[in-house]
């Protein structure tokens, strides 16, 4: 059985996520990001940020609503039960702070088969309310037994 490649190049509707203070603190606590700039407004502003700054990996929180429909799209055809997260890359630009509205667009860049596994590669681009790019993400999912 071969992988379907029709979805290469497909884009899904952009989603917008509003960054809240307690969500940033909750995420920072879960990943052990103890720099006070992730918790305390005065510290963050003293360090030159507009407001409490999100840890870099907070990207997964505001990107998830854009990625979910891509992963679940029947035209992509991922068998979720056999899916592994194979690799991940983020390239960060402008920091994300509390109060930002981050818009993320997901696109399928590659689908291919190798050694009996299906490789599904997605790219997300996230921009803030000023139109500045905050991150580009490359998400590689591997499906066993395609």
């Amino acid at each position: 059985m071969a992988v379907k490649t029709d979805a290469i190049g497909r884009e899904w509707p952009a989603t917008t996520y509003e960054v809240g203070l307690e969500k940033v603190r909750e995420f920072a606590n879960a990943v052990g990001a103890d720099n006070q700039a992730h918790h305390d407004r005065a510290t963050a502003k003293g360090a030159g940020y507009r407001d409490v700054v999100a840890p870099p990996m907070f990207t997964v929180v505001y990107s998830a609503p854009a990625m979910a429909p891509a992963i679940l799209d029947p035209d992509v055809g991922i068998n979720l039960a056999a899916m592994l997260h194979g690799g991940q890359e983020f390239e960060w630009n402008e920091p994300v702070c509390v109060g930002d509205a981050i818009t993320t667009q997901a696109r399928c860049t590659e689908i291919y088969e190798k050694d009996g596994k299906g490789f599904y590669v997605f790219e997300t681009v996230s921009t803030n309310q000023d139109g500045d790019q905050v991150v580009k993400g490359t998400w590689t999912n591997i499906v066993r037994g395609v």
Partner: protein
Amino acid sequence: MADLKQGDAVPEMKTTPDKYLPHRYAGASGDFNPIHIDKEFATAVGLPSNILHGLWMMSQVARANNAVAGGDPKALKRLSVQFRGMGFPEQEITVTGTVVEADGDRIVIDTVAEQGGNQVIRNSEAELDLS
């Protein structure tokens, strides 16, 4: 740390996720896949136990690299990882890194996360801007 040069090791970071860490990370990230938070489900689908979220493990690699820049979150410009093993709660994870490129303020670090002798993240490359 601006005097880092190619071949230098960066400070090692150790962390032990507690039993309920995957639940807290699920809530924080929104990823409630039961393989991470339900031991019965995980074993029923053939895993040894519930497993750590790969992106949580990546966040520990990010944290170790941020620490090289004195904890400054905006110093981390790029991070790529490959997930090559399962991580488990209640076992220590050690993150180590080696400088592979040093060009002024731009530093590239190769990072490995290991748990119980198993490399759970490898071929990881972090780019820092120490300016």
